[in-house]
């Protein structure tokens, strides 16, 4: 029974990766955006290589993780394939996990490649193997967290990706700017420092600082604990929202909405008769 479930989740994940990896919003918001954002941040500024490394890894991880998960449900609602999935023996949490795993894998692969290239190119030195493991643990947690954040935005029962991308960008950028990537937490004024606690990227950037140069603000245990707390909260809130909005997604989008209008007209016409 559990193996059947895992098998279904894996099939859904494979489907999501192969179908959505080349979609426009995924390429634009997952790859091009962090690349150009990093360029505009780094060029012409006197920033240490460690600081650049922390920024690039955090942004790549966060942006790639929030690329696939918001687009799957709106596209599948529009193309009616979501209904096909829902009539097969798949539960809602299997569908959601399939999206999260696909998005997490995409983020992990891209971020790992960028991280390894950067380490090799700029000879980033780690104090121990444990810090390397901690760094990848942080990247993994951020990949899951970002995927869940994207999924949360996709709870809006729409069949237009632009609607969801608008929401996710409205959430993503403030979280990024208050995270301590651009300005280290130690240098933030106290009110901004307080706000930065509400961004999960703060804890990834801080964990990476611990791994790279030991200039962390919190302890690494706190960083990992906070990332896990964010994941749990996101998963619970996301699941509950999707459970609530899924019937609406099927009932009120596209043709069904037109049908509902027609239904009302039909009743009105009957009354006239």
């Amino acid at each position, binding site marked *: 029974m559990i193996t059947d479930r895992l*098998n279904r989740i894996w099939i859904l994940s494979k489907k999501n990766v192969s*179908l959505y990896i080349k979609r426009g919003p995924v390429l634009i918001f997952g790859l091009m955006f962090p690349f150009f954002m990093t360029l505009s941040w780094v060029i012409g500024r006197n920033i240490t290589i460690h600081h650049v490394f922390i920024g690039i890894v955090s942004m790549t991880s966060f942006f790639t993780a929030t690329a696939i998960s918001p687009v799957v449900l709106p596209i599948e609602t529009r193309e009616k*394939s979501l209904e096909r999935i*829902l*009539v097969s023996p*798949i539960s809602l949490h299997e569908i959601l996990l399939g999206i999260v795993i696909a998005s997490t894998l995409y983020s992990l692969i891209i971020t790992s490649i960028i991280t390894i290239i950067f380490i090799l190119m700029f000879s980033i030195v780690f104090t121990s193997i444990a810090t390397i493991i901690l760094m990848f643990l942080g990247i993994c947690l951020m990949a899951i967290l970002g995927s869940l954040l994207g999924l949360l935005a996709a709870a809006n029962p729409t069949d237009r990706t632009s609607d969801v991308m608008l929401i996710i960008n409205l959430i993503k950028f403030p979280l990024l700017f208050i995270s301590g990537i651009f300005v280290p937490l130690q240098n933030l004024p106290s009110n901004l420092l307080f706000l930065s606690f509400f961004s999960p990227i703060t804890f990834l950037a801080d964990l990476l600082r611990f791994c790279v140069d030991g200039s962390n603000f919190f302890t690494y245990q706190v960083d990992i604990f906070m990332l896990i707390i964010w994941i749990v909260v996101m998963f619970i809130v996301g699941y509950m929202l999707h459970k609530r909005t899924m019937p609406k997604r099927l009932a009120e989008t596209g043709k069904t909405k037109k049908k*509902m209008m027609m239904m*009302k007209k039909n009743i009105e016409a009957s009354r006239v008769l």
Partner: protein
Amino acid sequence: MTFQNKLTNDIDHELYLGKKSIAIKVSNLYKRFEDLTAVNDVSFEIFEGEIVGILGPNGAGKTTTIRLLTGIFKLEGKASIEIFNEGITTNLSKYKINFGIVPEVSNAFSDFTVWQNLKFSGGIYGFPKEKIEKRSKKLLEQFGLLDKMHSKTKTLSKGLKQRLNFCLALLHEPSILILDEPTSGLDPISVKLMRNRILQLKKEGKTILITTHDMQEAQTICDRILIMNRGKIIADESPDTLRKRFKSTSTILFKIDGVLSNDHKNTLMDTFNTIKEVNDYYAFSSNDVIRDISMLYNFSKENNLTISDFKVKETSLEEVFIHLIQKDSISMGVK
């Protein structure tokens, strides 16, 4: 007169009751979207191996009924559904395996090939790759899609996409098929292929629920018809019974060689008072076709007239459908 659950007047279905087990038992289905009641206290039974058509105007609640039936929408209030005597709430995944669904518009993944779509579906139902391949090839051959196996779904025509929908719905060998306007917008060859396949599937023992706007289709392939309007079932009978019950008259058309005199016309008017000239034909309504044909024969013999052409037009299901919908709408207006 209520038509809800009314099978007792229909001899065919008394026979069904005796011989077949109930495949689908639906009671008190109800679904509301904000200020609109889409399905209102719908109950019906479908017997194993039966083809039941749901007819209704746009927005009558047909698709919502199907979505409730297939577990997409949660049941509300007193509603209950039993599939082969098993309730929907006990095990939703196991419940869903009973159904194969063919939608009106393709819901296959458009960027996947035909084979990738089948492989995905088979995988979801837990089939090993060899079984998926064997079964897929068989279905693709039956539906004339084998040469399109590696074509992207988005490159297929509407007819071919619909054939793929049938293959996807049948891949896991479901006992119940739900067809949502399966031949809508298809060319005549594809329509014929689909109808033949539906009848073949009935022979194989599948229980089939079909929604359609095509009265000809409903009349040809359905054993029983449910007519829905404003979220309620307003009729539940076999196509023949429906036609007889609600529009018992047929139309007799005939053509006479030569020109009829005024006397002949008057006699005809006296005998068949609804007679009128339609193009080169005379047409009149008949409640008793045999009696009226015999009277027409006697009339032609007595007056030395030759009937060169002769037709009996049965009341169509479409006329019954329009009659019932109008009647229901008027009754609602009265309320």
